[in-house]
């Protein structure tokens, strides 16, 4: 999920200083000295690795869900908690904690896209992540583990967030295993070797309630949680990306992305079978082509795509539910639910950055 890394990186290029504040300031694609670096062959251990890794510079708990009202109206929600170490070494306690936290939440339907943001520092309890019991929170936004003892803490979650004009309260239950990307969770991000630890839980069944200006709506659907942490995950010449997480009706799933740089785009992804078995995709396995664009926030953004993955018989068209799913946070980016048609039908989420 390079895209999410890049969202954070965008902060560095941004002139908005608070954004930089929330992001860490040494520069993400720059020097990682003093921070931990992902090691090839290091096995992930759960539930420890569900928690925070303060010795790495950046980390997130990133959840998207495609939902539906009883009348079939589609919705999408996003719940993200970013962690950033502002300085390497001992994170410190109290106000002098070097851990900065940022939350993004959004609710998209066919009529509107609504977003909100929170930032906080660690050390005083305003934001953080614990493993036993599992909880990730910033202010009143919470991702709370509700799994019975003995099971993976991420296998059942309650999730809430709200903004000035929306809110949601959802229950999530995993119907499949955790999926490790790359080599057992060691995910390479660039030809020059940048990498991150990256795993997902793409098999959530969701039930719950959305709060909209017109009233509450009961919804059901699917959700996808990404967990990733690193210290220097991007190459310097990478400036934009398009990232897809798709649920197909046959139960299979696809994570795919392209990093647009100076030369040809670096493409990668994971094919996830309905049983949870994952196949990393090589750079040349994917074909991606924008079909049409939408004018959003003063820039043109491709909101309709053609994606082909011949090795798995996939040739699909991906269409945004709303073209204006613009996250007007300190780091602006596009993130919204999509519909999938073609050889495979389904739903999913699309994230795009770097369109100026």
């Amino acid at each position: 999920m390079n895209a999410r890394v890049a969202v954070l990186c965008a902060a560095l290029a941004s002139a908005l200083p608070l954004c930089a504040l929330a992001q860490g300031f040494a520069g993400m694609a720059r020097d990682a000295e003093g921070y931990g670096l992902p090691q090839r062959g290091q096995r992930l251990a759960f539930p420890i690795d569900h928690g925070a890794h303060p010795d790495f510079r950046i980390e997130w708990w990133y959840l998207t869900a495609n939902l539906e009202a009883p009348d079939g109206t589609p919705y999408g929600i996003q719940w993200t908690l970013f962690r950033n170490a502002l300085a390497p070494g001992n994170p410190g306690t109290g106000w002098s904690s070097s851990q900065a936290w940022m939350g993004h939440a959004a609710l998209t339907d066919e009529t509107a896209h609504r977003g909100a943001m929170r930032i906080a520092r660690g050390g005083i309890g305003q934001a953080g992540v614990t493993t036993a019991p599992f909880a990730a929170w910033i202010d009143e936004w919470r991702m709370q583990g509700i799994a019975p003892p003995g099971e993976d803490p991420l296998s059942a979650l309650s999730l809430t967030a709200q903004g000035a004009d929306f809110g949601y309260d959802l229950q999530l239950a995993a119907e499949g295993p955790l999926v490790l990307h790359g080599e057992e969770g060691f995910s390479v991000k660039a030809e020059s070797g940048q990498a991150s630890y990256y795993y997902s839980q793409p098999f959530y069944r969701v039930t719950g309630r959305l709060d909209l200006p017109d009233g509450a709506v009961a919804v059901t659907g699917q959700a996808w949680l990404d967990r990733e942490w690193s210290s220097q995950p991007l190459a310097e010449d990478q400036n934009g990306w398009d990232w897809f997480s798709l649920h197909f009706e046959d139960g299979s799933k696809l994570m795919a992305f392209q990093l647009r740089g100076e030369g040809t785009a670096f493409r990668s992804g994971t094919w996830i079978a309905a049983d949870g078995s994952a196949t990393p995709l090589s750079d040349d396995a994917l074909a991606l082509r924008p079909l049409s664009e939408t004018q959003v926030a003063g820039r043109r953004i491709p909101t309709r795509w053609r994606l082909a993955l011949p090795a798995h018989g996939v040739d699909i068209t991906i269409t945004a539910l709303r073209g204006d799913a613009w996250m007007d946070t300190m780091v602006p980016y596009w993130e919204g639910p999509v519909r999938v048609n073609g050889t495979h039908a389904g739903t999913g989420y699309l994230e795009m950055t770097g369109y100026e």
Partner: protein
Amino acid sequence: MRRVALSALLAHWRRHPLQLATLLLGLALATALWSGVQAINAEARASYARAAGVLGQDRLESLVPARGLPHLDQDIFVSLRRAGWQVSPLLEGQWSRAGISVQIVGLDPFTAPRSALPGMILDETRITDFLAPPGLAYGAPETVAALTGVVGLPPLAAAEGMAPGLLFTDIGIAQSLLRAEGRLSRLLILPDQPRSRPELAAIAPGLERRAPIEQADSAQLTGSFHLNLTAFGLLSFAVGLFIVHSAIGLAFEQRRPMFRTLRALGLPLRDLVVVLAGEVVLLALVAGLVGIALGYLIAAALLPDVAATLRGLYGATVSGSLSLRPEWWLGGLGMALAGAAIAAGQSLWRLWRLPLLAPAQPTAWARASTRALARQGIAAGGLALVAVLAAVHGQGIAGGFILLGALLISAALALPGILALMLAGGARLARGALAQWFWADTRQQLPGLSLALMALLLALSANIGVGTMVASFRLTFTDWLDQRLPSELYVTARDQEEARRLRDWLAPRIDALLPIWKVEGTILGGPVEIYGVADHRTYPDNWPLILGEADTWQVLARGQGMIVNEQLWRRADLALGDTVPLPGGAVRALVGVYADYGNPKGQVILGLDDLTALYPDVDRRRYAIRTDPAAVPELKTALTEEFGLPSDSMIDQGRVKEISLMVFERTFLVTGALNVLTMAVAGFAMFTSLLTLSTMRLPQLAPVWALGLTRRRLARLELIRAMLLAGLTLLVAVPVGLILAWVLLAVINVAAFGWKLPMHLFPADWLWLGLLALAAAGLAAAWPAWRLARLAPSDLLKVFADER
């Protein structure tokens, strides 16, 4: 044609450069004092606005501890955030060490309202320094410059646009600087709140909302001070206008033959008036610009003292550096133009009414006229009536200033008449021919000098009035300090636990340990501090009560009453026996009122046990120590060694008094400076008037010379004449000044500060001022007199020879 006329008219100034200089300098001085004062006011107002706007406090509501406690727990902040309340923590406090003091504002850049933060704080290259110990403190450039090298503060960085006198640091850094770990002053409620959140009472029952306006009261508090300055500026401006009026009047009179010639040559009267008005505007613009430059210098020189005054009196911080704000320099230019218009108006009007063939010779342009004196006298009487009415019925500071203005103008208008009477009396008593002539001639000079003398009267009265007020205040204040600070040493523990240990340790070693415990809260709509006093003889023996019964202190000790400071008593219009609701709902009867000079806040004193019962979590860290004064240094050393108390936690009586008096002296430094400037302007007015008269007086002096007086003797008489007039003016100024002092002490002070002061008389000062006035008059007359003494006989003979 107009151009030709203008150049002919302007040629006059080439021939009379001194007159031109007088006119320009007079107007420039008037403008300078006015715009200087306005520049100071504008800077101060800008500082208040910035201070009020710190972190958007002028717009945002905040949450404060409900029971008047100084702090709230930072866990409450986290609880509120986790319940959905979008609030941002603030910790404010005064940091001081070794006599240096600065306001610390601790904030959380993560949650603080972004638009209200100075951009510098968010500088991404320094944010990590800002957050991590030792932190980084941002202040206005001058604040940073003043604090450079002070030990104990975080590294400093200058940020433009910040309110002066305070430092922004991260809240964590502020907690350790202010020794307030885990505590906050209040929480700002951010404008954007989420969709739903629980009631405040459910999360933080100990907090209450406070409206944004309450924190921005500097402007209100200091309004009277600025009105004061403005009044001074206006006074100076008026004094300066006297100069301009006489210079313009003279220039018009001297050019009357030319006006006649120009008109005879066919220049329409309207054009002549337009050209002359244009000339006045031109001169006013030049003088105005010079005046604004001078005003800037004056303001820049005075501003640091004004800033110190405002800090000392009101706790308001004002930038010590000056910026060129259009509101004052445009205003200054406008005043210069308006002043020139006022000064020239009469002359232009006369010109307008002048018949073409009127005699061209300069008549005495301000001739003695009993009718004019009578008219002025009637106006003076009317204004005196206004002053009396304002004294009887006037309300507040505005009434006080109406009283002052009416009093001063009335006295100024009455002055020529009074002087004429005095001189007539002198003439009647005179024996010799020369003496008779001297008195009679002095009286004849009166109209030409009356404006300058009125200016002198204003300056002298202001001097006596303000001087008496300041000296009375100082006398009262020092006495009061002696009474009010009976304890030999004051200590502040770093926390409650240390305070407890300190108490135990000190008990056997000293005469008495008197707690200085306080909470803050709101009484009758205003912020107050509530203290508790121990039942100890120190208080009945020393504490100066303005109102109270013999048993006031016993009543306090029994927890059955309260006493308040004079400010609160006046502001809330309380009477003994009134019951007053305290924060938290308790009610106490008022049993006494005490003087509390120099404190902008209302204050309440309860019995100590009463205080702790009502407010159990009162801050208990401060104590006053009664002991043998000789033992104080030893005690301080012991406290440092035993408890590691830093030296700034202890302050002895002498030092407190020293600081208080220093604040006091600085407070009135500006007043003194303005006084001197006003005197200087008045002296200059006198000088220009005498200079003007000296050329016009030759026809009056030449016959006396011809009849047998030497020029030197005449010059000496001229000098004595000026000093006589100054002396007589002083005689009038003393009673006027004393009335002024009374108004300042009993009316303005009460309205502006909330306290009334007893008036003391300082005749030695008047003597000194009298000498000063005589010296000023002597100096002003010296040059014209010297010129007369050295005048060539042929110049005097022209009087006889000239066909006039």
